[in-house]
């Protein structure tokens, strides 16, 4: 692991310290310079507690790499002792009960300072809009908004901290280039999958996803493919089984990639099939150890005859995504990923169905290992799909 010497002006003082490239500015201030006034709440840009000034502009310290601040002018809450405008804001926050525990306060003050200097005409509604990126969990926002309104109404002193012209600054490189290629989940040990399966009732409030797939193949042949778990798994890009399924129970994994994200879900599922009615269900749960995210889901599926050479597969899924991946797992996004995946899977199932009955054991051996160009959500969707399709007994 390499470090870089970061030189910058911190609260008016030239400082230099070694930083790992991954260190964000808040950690750089807190750990290297013991300036603990910059608070970390969510550490992914949502709460605003770490807001401070870089080159005179408020930024999220948790989303600002220290190495990207070479030669910058950084000002944290500790650097405003002598600032008349900040003094005015501090008094107003006290007077209006604009803080209780104080955790959000450094970020609130930074944003308030920016509002006062940038939007001198702001009314209460505008102040609230500007404060939307700073969360407070105790006093509520009334006192904070009142404090800022008060300062704006009272002929505030000019701001001493102003944006500096964006300049191009030479930035030294890290000492040695990375020898390592991008790591994926594959190279990391994964946590053992949860032994248990979710129950149907517990998924009732999960996100619902329903789809109809039309397959250009004779229904009985499609059913033959669907009732062979290893073959179905091999139709799903990125999915593989650990071992041949036993009694409808299976363990395996599914690698899905969405943009820069990649997740490898390991888990287990139970497949139940009703050959007479050509329907079935898959219940499963999986976990991506690296992102500490889990997906559980239920898939019900039913195959219908459209004609002698065409089948319709009705899919109804409920899933729940938990953990950091859920931050990016908006239902519309999951659906899109699922649809892209389903299109590939149904084409592949139709192709296999037309090719004839699957040879014994080909599925598991032929399971493709490449990651899908989808989302983490896709992973979820995939797992759900696998489960649905695999669900048979």
């Amino acid at each position, binding site marked *: 692991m390499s470090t*870089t010497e970061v030189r910058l002006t911190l609260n008016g003082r030239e400082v230099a310290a070694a930083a790992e*490239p*991954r260190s*964000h500015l808040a950690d750089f201030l807190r750990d290297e310079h013991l300036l603990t006034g910059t608070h970390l709440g969510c*550490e*992914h*840009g949502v709460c*605003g507690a770490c807001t401070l000034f*870089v080159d005179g*502009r*408020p*930024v*999220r310290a*948790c*989303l*600002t*790499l220290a*190495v*990207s601040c*070479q030669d910058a002018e950084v000002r944290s809450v500790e650097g405003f002792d002598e600032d008349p405008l900040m003094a005015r804001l501090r008094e107003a926050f006290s007077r209006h009960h604009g803080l209780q525990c104080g955790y959000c306060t450094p970020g609130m003050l930074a*944003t308030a300072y*920016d509002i006062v200097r940038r939007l001198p005409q702001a009314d209460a509604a505008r102040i609230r*809009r500007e404060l*939307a*990126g700073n969360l407070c969990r105790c006093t509520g926002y009334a006192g904070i908004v009142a404090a800022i309104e008060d300062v704006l109404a009272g002929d505030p002193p000019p701001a001493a901290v102003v944006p500096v012209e*964006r300049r*191009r*600054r*030479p*930035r030294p*490189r*890290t000492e*040695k*280039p*990375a020898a*390592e*290629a*991008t*790591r*994926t989940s594959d190279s990391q040990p994964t946590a053992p999958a949860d032994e248990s399966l979710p129950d149907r009732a517990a998924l009732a409030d999960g996100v619902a996803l329903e789809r109809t797939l039309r397959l250009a193949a004779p229904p009985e042949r499609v059913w033959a493919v669907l009732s062979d778990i290893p073959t179905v798994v091999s139709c799903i890009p990125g999915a593989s089984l650990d071992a041949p399924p036993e009694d409808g129970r299976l363990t395996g994994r599914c690698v899905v990639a*969405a*943009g*820069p*994200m990649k*997740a490898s879900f390991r888990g287990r599922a139970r497949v139940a099939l009703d050959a007479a009615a050509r329907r079935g269900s898959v219940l499963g749960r999986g976990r991506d150890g*690296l*992102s500490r995210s889990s997906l559980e889901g239920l898939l019900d599926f039913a195959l219908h005859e459209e004609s002698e050479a065409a089948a319709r597969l009705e899919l109804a899924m409920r899933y729940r995504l938990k953990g*950091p*991946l859920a*931050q*990016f797992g*908006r239902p*519309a*996004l999951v659906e*899109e*990923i699922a*649809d*892209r995946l389903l299109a590939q899977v149904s084409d592949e199932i139709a192709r296999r169905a037309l090719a004839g009955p699957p040879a014994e054991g080909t599925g598991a051996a032929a399971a493709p290992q490449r990651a899908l160009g989808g*989302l*983490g959500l896709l992973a979820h969707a995939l797992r759900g799909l696998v489960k649905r399709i695999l669900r048979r007994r």
Partner: protein
Amino acid sequence: MKSAPFDYLAADDLADAGALLREGGKPVAGNQSLGPMLNLRLVRPGRLVDLSGLPELRRVEEREDCVRLGAAITHAEIEDGEAADPTGGWLRAAAAGIAYRAVRNRGTLGGSLAHADPAADWVIVMTGLCATALLAGPEGARRVPLEDFVTGPFATALGEGEILTAVEVPRPGRGARWGYWKFARQVGEFAKASAAVLVDREAGRLRCAVGALGRQPLLLDDPAGLIEGRVDPGEALRRALPERAVEDLALHVTALRRALEAATA
């Protein structure tokens, strides 16, 4: 949470950046979209290549019929009018609605487009404005219309080692109108539904685009009919996306109606 370790290189210029990316590396500019994914360890690049200081990406070029905005221009620079806005304020208003000011101060136009979050503002706004992405790569430079640049959720037409250098926004003709409407449950959140409508008869550009669909923006095929009120927005959306449940499109229909109202009322 802290990011997994990675190495960091700041590229000096476009040629340098291209070489670094070809050696393997994830491009980054403002780090406002990638940053959360890094900190949550959903993304673990071996190396980041910082493009935010590239002179080629920090340029704003005003031309007779368009403005070329460098990919590393920040949202705040557009919001504040520091970067030229050929539309007379449409870009500025859209920029002001992105996330929060502290994010806009670092987040960049090109970073947002290359990240290609289906619900992001620039993805739908630039598509609606008939903008063109300018790309530079090992095979040379090329131009890609925005509607072909974003190819899916978090997916773009960018090839291996290729860099989005600028976005070319055409100057609207006289009397051109614009409507952009998005629905977000909270200020600064990603949109649940969005739509953009451009009525530029002088330049022959009519466009109705719907965003935040979880996929690339949808360009409706009869913009004139929608703009002239001959086609019902709900009907147009249902026809374009027959596989989607009607209730899932309700917000998008509303977004389209409101964007149409803004552009025609």
